[in-house]
């Protein structure tokens, strides 16, 4: 009986944690539900800031293609890195990305968000158009979401394009600038990422 109860608890925890971030697989609804969930989390006054950040991170880990984003952002340097450095980069990038994402989402969480349309570019990609509605402090912001749909049952976010400007590309060029200024020394990029994560 005790074993059965333990199994039941494990099953329930697994099921809940798997399903809590399983959004609709239609790209437009996927973005709508995901953002709605993120905004509700950030504006929920009954949970602590740490718990809010934790939930946002869980949503991101389940729905953003962080691995591909990290490799894209690293640029051609990824081809020359040894396995250990690549592993270290992936770990640091994930931490950096999650902290940066939580910070950005918190900045914009009080604003109204609308999903407008979805455009299937290929079997692999959908671009979902959305906007942050104009407010007293800010004009309307158009945001396009690059959704990777190779596995239609598991859409993943790869990039946000704000007013036509790709955040992934901007990030890639920031990293490239750091590497170029330091003879492509990956350790300098590692220390910059660590500095950001620990601050």
């Amino acid at each position, binding site marked *: 009986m005790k074993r059965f109860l333990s199994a039941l608890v494990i099953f329930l925890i697994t099921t809940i944690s798997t399903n809590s971030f399983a959004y609709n697989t239609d790209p437009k609804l996927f973005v709508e539900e995901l953002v709605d969930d993120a905004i509700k989390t950030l504006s929920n006054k009954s949970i602590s800031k740490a718990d809010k950040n934790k939930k946002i991170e869980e949503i991101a880990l389940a729905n953003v*293609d962080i691995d*591909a984003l990290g*490799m*894209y952002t690293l640029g051609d340097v990824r081809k020359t890195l040894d396995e250990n450095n690549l592993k270290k980069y992936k770990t640091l990038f994930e931490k950096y990305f999650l902290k*940066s994402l939580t*910070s*950005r989402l918190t*900045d*914009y969480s009080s604003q109204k968000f609308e999903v407008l349309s979805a455009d299937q*570019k*290929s079997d*692999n*990609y959908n*671009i979902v158009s959305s906007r942050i509605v104009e407010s*007293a*402090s*800010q*004009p309307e*912001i158009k945001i*396009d979401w*690059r959704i*990777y749909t*190779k596995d239609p049952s598991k859409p993943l976010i*790869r*990039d946000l*394009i704000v*007013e*036509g*400007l*790709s955040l992934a*590309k*901007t990030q890639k*060029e*920031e*990293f*490239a*600038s*750091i590497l170029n200024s330091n003879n492509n020394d990956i350790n300098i990029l590692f220390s*910059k*990422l660590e500095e*950001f994560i620990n601050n």
Partner: protein
Amino acid sequence: MNFKNLGILITAGTLLFNTNLSAETEKECFEKLSRGIFEFNQVVDKAVLKPIAKGYSKLPEPIKNGTGNFTSNLATLLTVPNHLLQGQWRSAGESTASFLINSTIGILGFANPAEKLGLKNQQEDVGQTLGAYGVGGGCYFVLPILGPTTIRDTVGMVADTLVDPFAQITLREKEILSISGSKIDYFSVMGASAVDFRADNIKNLESLEKNSLDMYAAIKSLYLQNRAKKISNTFTSDDDEWNEFNK
């Protein structure tokens, strides 16, 4: 406005900086100096522009909207000839109609009834026209106070004052259709436009600064992406860049 001068400028620009349009430059003219100027601009921004923009953003909505409408209506005077130079006849017509409606019914441009009529007013400048003719950026650098630019866009900025009737009347103090102005008018409008833009982007720039590992490189990337988008007048999300990561 002197189209002959502009023609010479565009031809010279094309010959000097002719490169592939799609290859928006990442090359730096003098990065070390540009980074120094960027730091200086950041200090000026924090000490002067940002506090003014913060104060401005607290003004009532009608005043802020009116200021934004007024400055962007005047910018239409630069947009129309650039649409014509790029052969965008429909856009030139829409911008002209927008300017006429907003300057009259819209009370000197403080209101924007043209937008409600569905007239688009997309801003164009000589830098964009040069880009549309295939002139590449040349190289990237940062100007004191004025911020990020490229050789092409700096040439364009100077040419703007030849093409723009408002700059002719104010900055160059020429009388057109019995309308005259002064340099103070020109710099007041440019200043108001800068404050309006800065106020619209307080949160965006704060968020960018907070999350950047290299703010200089982030601004450079955003500037070059924005110029490429404005030159092509479309946003094309490049799937090819990502294909390598398809699992």
